[in-house]
């Protein structure tokens, strides 16, 4: 008994030791910066020059800042567009590459490749693909006779938004596909076999086995996608610069502008804190709604 206890204690210590590096990393790169952000959000903190404590002033000001709420609204619109696009595309791709076939490895890699290049690099790449002078998209459409002159993809608010959604779908579908693929492959083959014996067709198998059993996978993929979309910055900063006429400014873009254009770092911190709270609440809601029946 005694020996067992000491073994458990020893194991426990070993366990702590093993997670220590990870905890240290999280503390250094998450909790300490988070604490500093909170601290800064309570100050009038310019990029250059002296700072002073101003309590909750930044938060009060934020409540009345229309531009912030507008950017949040725009980011929500973007999220509502990009998330279904990602899910539908990723689900179809996951179905395509699910079964081990001769080419499935190749296709999985091909679909996943855009994920491994950075968002900034992808944005730069697409900015030139969309470019009116040297871009490939307009050139192809003109070649096949659909256009007479180059299309200005970013020249209306919706045009710019849809162009960015297309880029992000290309860039991130592979990631969602992998998440869904893991969930799909975790479903035991017996279930499908039993269903086939009972006469279920492909569609019924998908409807009554695959989709319900992937609920938790969907919850994970949805949460990841929503958080990612709310934090979108690079694509707007690089591809549209918030244009045309400031119609594509996401929340993080606005935070960046507050900090580095208006040099109000304290105010930008307050916005970051509010955004964090909003994301925490939204993630809880999503995970709650998509919880598995066993835990309900």
């Amino acid at each position, binding site marked *: 008994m005694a020996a067992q206890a000491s073994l458990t204690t020893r194991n426990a210590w070993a366990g702590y030791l093993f997670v220590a590096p990870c905890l240290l990393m999280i503390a250094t790169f998450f909790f300490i910066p988070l604490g500093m952000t909170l601290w800064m959000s309570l100050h009038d903190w*310019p*990029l*250059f*020059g002296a700072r002073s404590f101003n309590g909750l002033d930044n938060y009060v000001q934020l409540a009345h800042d229309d531009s912030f709420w507008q950017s949040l609204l725009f980011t929500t619109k973007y999220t509502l567009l990009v998330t279904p696009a990602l899910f539908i595309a990723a689900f179809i791709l996951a179905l395509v590459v699910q079964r081990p076939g001769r080419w499935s490895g190749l296709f999985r890699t091909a679909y996943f490749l855009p994920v491994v290049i950075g968002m900034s690099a992808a944005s730069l790449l697409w*900015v030139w693909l969309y*470019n*009116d*002078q040297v871009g490939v998209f307009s050139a192809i459409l003109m070649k096949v006779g659909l256009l007479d*002159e*180059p299309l*200005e993809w*970013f*020249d209306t608010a919706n045009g710019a938004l849809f162009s960015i959604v297309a880029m992000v779908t290309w860039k991130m579908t592979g990631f969602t596909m992998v998440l869904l693929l893991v969930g799909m492959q975790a479903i035991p083959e017996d279930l499908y076999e039993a269903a086939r014996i009972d006469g279920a067709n492909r569609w019924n198998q998908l409807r009554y086995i695959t989709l319900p059993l992937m609920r938790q996978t969907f919850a994970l993929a949805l949460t990841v996608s929503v958080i990612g979309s709310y934090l979108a910055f690079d694509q707007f900063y690089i591809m*549209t*610069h*918030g*244009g*045309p*006429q*400031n119609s594509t*400014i996401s929340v993080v873009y606005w935070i960046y*502008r507050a900090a*580095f*254009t*208006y*040099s109000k*770092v304290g105010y930008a911190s307050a916005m970051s804190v509010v955004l964090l709270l909003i994301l925490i609440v939204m993630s809880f809601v999503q995970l709650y709604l998509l919880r598995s029946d066993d835990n309900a």
Partner: protein
Amino acid sequence: MNTSGRATLLLGASLIFAASACAVADDANNATFWVRMQDSSVATPLVKAWNASHKDQISLTVVPNDDFMTKFGTAAASGNVPDILAVDLIYVPQLAKAGQLTDITDKAKALPFAGTLSKAHMRLANSGGRQYALPFSAEGSLLVYNKGLFKKAGLDPNSPPKDWAGIEADAKKITALGGGVKGFYFSGACGGCQIFTFTPYIWASGGDILSADGKTPTLDKPEVKNALNFYHRMWSTGQISAGSKTDAGQNFINTFLTGKVGMVGTGAFAIGLLKREHPEIDFGVTPFPGEKGGTASFAGGDSIGIPKGSKHPGTAFEFISWCLTEPVQVEYFAKNGSIPVRSDLGKAYVNGDPRLQVAFDAFSKGQAPYSDKFNQLINDNNGPWATMVQEAVYGGNVDAAVKKAQTRFTEILAGK
């Protein structure tokens, strides 16, 4: 992992260590010097020449144009500033006001050539009678036009437009050539480009965007509205290609290089670029005209100063004054196609090319607005200046756009 994989990893790791060791050694002894990308072609040989002839070494860091203030702001906030800073002259008032630059008034006055230094640079680096920076590089804005297209359109290539009506008339004739040729171009979604190539039209007509002390906006004056209407007329009658509306500066000079644009506002740098890389384009340059004649130009470039907290202020000032000496100005600036920042050295730059004379004069007589909120007002592509140009030129409602910008300018200048 196989052996070759492991070897690659080890090699990579040791290279990173070696590189970081070098970086540390560099920083410990050398003075650091930050410059924006735009000036790197001048600064790189310059620093090389300094290091070859001086004991105190300098290491150069080139920062992308758009990220310069962000990077310097972050550095200043963490107390890790470069020893020498060459920054867009327009930002010096803001940096001086925030106490980020060392006062160099006495040393600057003692320079034997102090009287010849660029007036625009000196004015913007002066705050409350104290001098916080000196000129480093110069750039003047002007109108460049394609002589080949002028000839084809039946215009005299040696008589560029002298007023706005002239620009509009010439643009129409050139656009009429067809085949994708357009009379005029400008980068419509770029605040910095507009201050450089659009305000000169306002200045040449007697207007301005800010009062002389930089504290009151004057956007609602007729000269500003007229200039916006002038651009709007050219846009709505099709003298400008559609890409202008979303161009945040990427195609600032590119469209002219295609040989399909008649006239475009640009900087002196374009003369060297065109001569070097596009000898097939026969071009001329002329100052920006006002509505009914007159001329104006934006005098830009970089100022060089010593950030507060510099660890090598002595070396820093030595380097700054060395850059301004005649041999350096001639050898590394003028002969490199960059306008010298001393009024007595124009000859070495012009070197017999009348187009460079136009550029030198444009710069010498040019002006730049003084404001410690320049970034928020003007350079911010989502700010009130860029938004006003967008709404007025492409939207057409000039009065509403101007009114909105005037209000927003007033708010920003009041610190809101």
